[in-house]
């Protein structure tokens, strides 16, 4: 068994070692992703990924989230994984690339979609005359307009938060939806999107000084 901190041993190094060594077993990961805490297992067979799971998802959706753990711990347990149904066929380097590209996408879309806990509302003004949406776009739109967050919609559709955020970004750019706030995952309370408090306080000082 190999166990340690991702601060000492990067996830990339770890994956390379398992892949090149042709190892079979379970890689348990726990740590912080751009979307909060994540915990899960990646199943390897002869150095290839067979499946992955987190508390909420399986397969590629799970592995993309697990490979974006930046701080945390790992434990590799050599074990027979033949009983695990194969759901992933991509190679380790391809999976790393996929996870990296999803993170890049997130960094771009987070300008418009502030957080995975963002909530949206349909915009009734300025709707384009003709809109072409894919079936997945529609499914995401239906859930977001019902008040689900990006994270909740991802869970419901078994998609990655990255992919739902990307669709939400597109729908926002098309002015079909608009971010209106952020939901606290624990209390379910929605905090309205507001201008920076810092700005309001500075504006108050400025007006007082006029």
């Amino acid at each position: 068994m190999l166990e340690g901190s991702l601060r000492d041993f990067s996830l990339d190094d770890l994956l390379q070692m398992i892949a090149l060594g042709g190892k079979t077993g379970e890689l348990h990961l726990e740590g912080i992703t751009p979307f909060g805490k994540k915990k899960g297992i990646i199943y390897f067979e002869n150095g290839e990924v067979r499946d992955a799971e987190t508390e909420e998802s399986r397969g590629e959706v799970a592995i993309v989230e697990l490979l974006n753990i930046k701080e945390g711990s790992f434990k590799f347990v050599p074990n027979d994984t033949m009983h695990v149904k194969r759901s992933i066929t991509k190679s380790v380097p391809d999976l790393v690339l996929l996870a990296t590209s999803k993170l890049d996408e997130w960094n771009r879309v987070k300008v418009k979609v502030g957080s995975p806990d963002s909530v949206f509302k349909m915009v009734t003004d300025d709707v384009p005359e003709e809109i072409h949406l894919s079936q997945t776009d529609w499914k995401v739109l239906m859930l977001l307009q019902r008040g689900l967050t990006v994270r909740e919609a991802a869970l419901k559709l078994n998609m990655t938060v990255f992919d739902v955020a990307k669709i939400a970004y597109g729908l926002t750019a098309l002015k079909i939806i608009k971010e209106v706030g952020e939901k606290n995952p624990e209390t379910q309370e929605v905090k309205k999107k507001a201008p920076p408090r810092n700005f309001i306080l500075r504006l108050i000082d400025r007006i007082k000084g006029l």
Partner: protein
Amino acid sequence: MKHYKIVVTGPFAAGKTTFIKTITEISPISTEAKITSEEEASVKDSTTVAMDFGRITVDEDYVLHIFGTPGQFRFNYMWSILSKDALGVILLVDSGDRDMFDEAKDMLNFFRVKTDVPIIIALNHFNEKEHISEEELRKIMNVPDSIPVIGCDATSKESVKAVLLKLLELILQEQE
């Protein structure tokens, strides 16, 4: 530089253009046209047809834009456009002009439905002539307690500042 906006709205001849002129740091940009309606011309010569625009620079990072809407209901498409992404709305009402209150009530309902931002009502000419009391106005216009009503004089810088500060206070409260 990031900019935010506040909208000043209110019925025809409530004093919106004056309100913005009093506080803006730049020469206000107005889209005024000569009034053709006899009834309106008896009140003033020109009216805002698209918007008034004023600005207050906060510092090197932030600037506040102040947009004034046209007063007449026929220009209400501009109300939606101008109030989009606003921080808050100031509904200006002439406190001595009772004919204005029904229209002001409709405007209040319009902005309450179309936006979910804080709204305050500023009663212009509050100290000049016989004016309506806050209680009476709340009753006539069906104003809930959550919407503050404040007296003001749109020609006085201190008074306009007080209205803006009241709105900002409300915005801060809503953030808590």
